[in-house]
């Protein structure tokens, strides 16, 4: 083997290793996603299964969950007694899914007041702190849980500013000021549907609509019906 060939071989191997490392990094970046969290299954009644999904919204996700973006507004989901930072939820098909949202964020108001109307729940209503209602004042909206392709739009009223013991960042506890919103949806056929928030809740962004509003894992995700 000539010196040139040896040199070229060495360079070739070096380039190949570097390329492989870069490719691995890019692949890891491209396929990274929040974990998929399954709703806890509940009792079956009259042949219809049920599941329970418990969510939390916070004004700031905090450095524990997101060192790069501790101030971003976010959803969290409860799994086996822990709060997990994810917006990809798996629910059973053709079932009743009871969703409870613990709302810790203050109000910022809807961009389109029309989204203050509850749509697509089994009764057309939701319960806010136990009280049944079919809409809220759009000014009081903090977030929405909306799955447009399934026709589901649920506005979530915010915690009043003057309430004591506000939660600063996730995870928030039941002792802190919050509102509890619960509603039930009936899932249909299998599919993967995006859900999002319609309140411009991303502080510091143009129109309140950048950053967490446009990043998977914060204010939007997928509802996997399986």
């Amino acid at each position, binding site marked *: 083997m000539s010196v040139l060939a040896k040199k*070229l071989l060495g360079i070739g191997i070096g380039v190949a290793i570097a390329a492989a490392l870069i490719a691995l990094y*890019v692949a890891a*970046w*491209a*396929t*990274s*996603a929040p974990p998929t969290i399954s709703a806890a299954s509940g009792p079956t009644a009259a042949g219809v299964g049920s599941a329970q999904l418990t969510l939390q919204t916070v004004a700031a996700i905090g450095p524990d969950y997101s060192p*790069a*973006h*501790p*101030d*971003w507004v976010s959803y969290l989901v409860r799994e086996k007694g822990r709060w997990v930072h994810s917006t990809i939820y798996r629910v059973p098909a053709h079932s009743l899914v009871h969703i409870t949202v613990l709302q810790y964020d203050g109000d910022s108001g809807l961009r389109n007041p029309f989204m203050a109307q509850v749509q697509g729940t089994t009764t057309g209503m939701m319960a806010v702190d136990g009280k049944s209602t079919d809409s809220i004042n759009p000014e009081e909206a903090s977030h929405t849980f909306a799955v447009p392709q399934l026709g589901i739009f649920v506005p979530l009223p915010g915690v009043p500013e003057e309430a004591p013991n506000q939660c600063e960042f996730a995870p928030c506890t039941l002792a802190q000021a919050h509102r509890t919103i619960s509603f039930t949806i009936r899932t249909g056929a299998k*599919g*993967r549907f*995006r859900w999002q928030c319609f309140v411009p809740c*991303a*502080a*510091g*962004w*143009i*129109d309140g*609509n*950048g*950053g967490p*509003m*446009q*990043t*998977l894992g914060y204010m939007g995700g997928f509802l996997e019906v399986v």
Partner: protein
Amino acid sequence: MNTVAEPATPVPGRRPLWRRMIGFNLLTAVILGVAGYYIGWFIGHEIKGASFDFIDDTDENDVALMLAYIGGVIGFLVGLGFANYPFSRMLGKPASLREKEEEGVGRYFGLCTDHKVVGIQYLVGIGLFFFIAGLNAMLIRTQLLHPVPTFVGPNQYLSLVGMHGSMMMGMMTSGILGPFANYFVPIMIGARRMAFPRIEALTFWLLMAAGFILTSTIFFGGFPTGWTGYQPLNEQAVMGMDSYIVFFALVGVSMTLLGLNMIVTIVALRAPGLTWSRLPIFVWSVLATAVLMVLAAPMLIGALTMAALDRTVNTGFFIVSAGGSPYLFENLFWFFGHPEVYILALPGFGIVLELLPVFTRKPLWGYRLGVAGMLGVTLMSFFVWQHHLFVSGINAALRPFYMLSTEIISIPTGFIFLCVMGTLWKARARFTVPMLFCMGWTFNFLIGGLSGVFLSDVPSDVDTHGSFFVMAHFHYTIMGGLIFTFFAAIYYWVPKMFGVCLNEKLAKIHFWSLFLAFNSTFMPLFVLGMKGMPRRVSTYNPNLQGLNVWVSISAFVIGLSMLVFIANVLYSLVIARVPAEANPWDSKSLEWQLPTPVPVNNFERIPTIENDPYEYGTPLTPPPRGAPGMAPAGG
């Protein structure tokens, strides 16, 4: 201590490795680039004020990233040695082109003012980013295998689309001008160098810095806007958007400088006797492209500067509630953007018309018509940009004008086709690999051009605007136009540039697999667009899955055919190294009359041009052999 007495005339021997690493070279450039990056980053974090409150809220410091990129680029260029010349002139020292004289492989990895070295640097550098952008396309097509995909997330998908588009549209603007015009224009016009050799080197290293910056977007969250960077989505995006802005602005600077350099070189450095009517058609196409670059790219730099100011210091050029208008960005962008697509297409025209006479053994048919076609396209391309805004709600009354101007641009483009057809008439064509790529261009650009008529017609555009139809159209004109001629140029000129033949069997496999897979990929995209599939979506109507799977598989075949090309290059240039003949195509062009490798100063004596460039064919002139059109060099 070295005790051996030094010879009286020191042989330029190799200095020890550590000594060679100190100085103005790529290593220093990277170190200074990183240092500049962190200095910018640090300054950016120190800036405070009421209008920067949003930085604390968003956890994203666009100011710091912009400054870091700028600092990094400055450090990188200083490290390469671009500051040496201005500083030594300021200190009153004489000018020198010492960078050019350096020998060995090392000169390919630093600032070199030899236009032939810059050409090869461009070829490899652009090839690298073309490869990366191609890999992005493979990931995009993998995603679209399924109507509700889970392969990559929605954020990453848009980033991939944006990186693929920006890299192809940004870096490949220099796809032919970078490698081939830099290498061959000075030779073809009988010059020893480009007019501004240092600026020539600068355009290349700026482009490399830009490409690296764009790739770094994945560290900052990517960007969602695609290559058009439309406002106000641009302003809502995370820091990865800054990578796009700095990238495209640097590309704009590189293009402007490259264009200026080309214009001055072609106007001022032509050899005696090389009148405008004797200029090779490829040089004409380079000139036309350079004019477009110089006139269009500054508009892009301006628009992106405004976008950068909006994102960092809270100006409101494009924000409605602050009195700005998104239409402003659309107009500025497309005033650059439409000439830009002709910047990509025109050099391809030049390559095809330059190569056809060689392989048909005929003079170029309709030389003046071809030149008129290129200049007509150059002129008209500044009057069509609002056809990108046919449904935007702006200037509805002007639509008939833009429809007319857009359709008029097909007249000069038609000239090129007539020249191709006329040159083929009763030819003695040799279907070598470069010729096959030229034929491929003719077919692809025909489809691209005819589909463009649908887009120029406003009623028809209402259906196809923003759909996969547009996507298929510009891939036919740019990939089918630029990339096919890029490969034609590679196969044609590599024997001159490297003195080595590329393997013909592998080259033919490359051509046929690329040509068939290309058409099999993009032809169905016209149908998908007409069936209502919008561009840049990561989910689509399930009834379109069959065609999408077909397209994806064809796209993977394109990827494989590119691997055949890479294998051919590695095999032919590294392993086989079959020496090329001095003039394997029997061309009469000036560059083929020079020895291989081309001497540093090209010509010992500047030639005097006495003939037209394409004196092929039997009846009119006796077949001159040797060095036609050139006074015997070297006395």
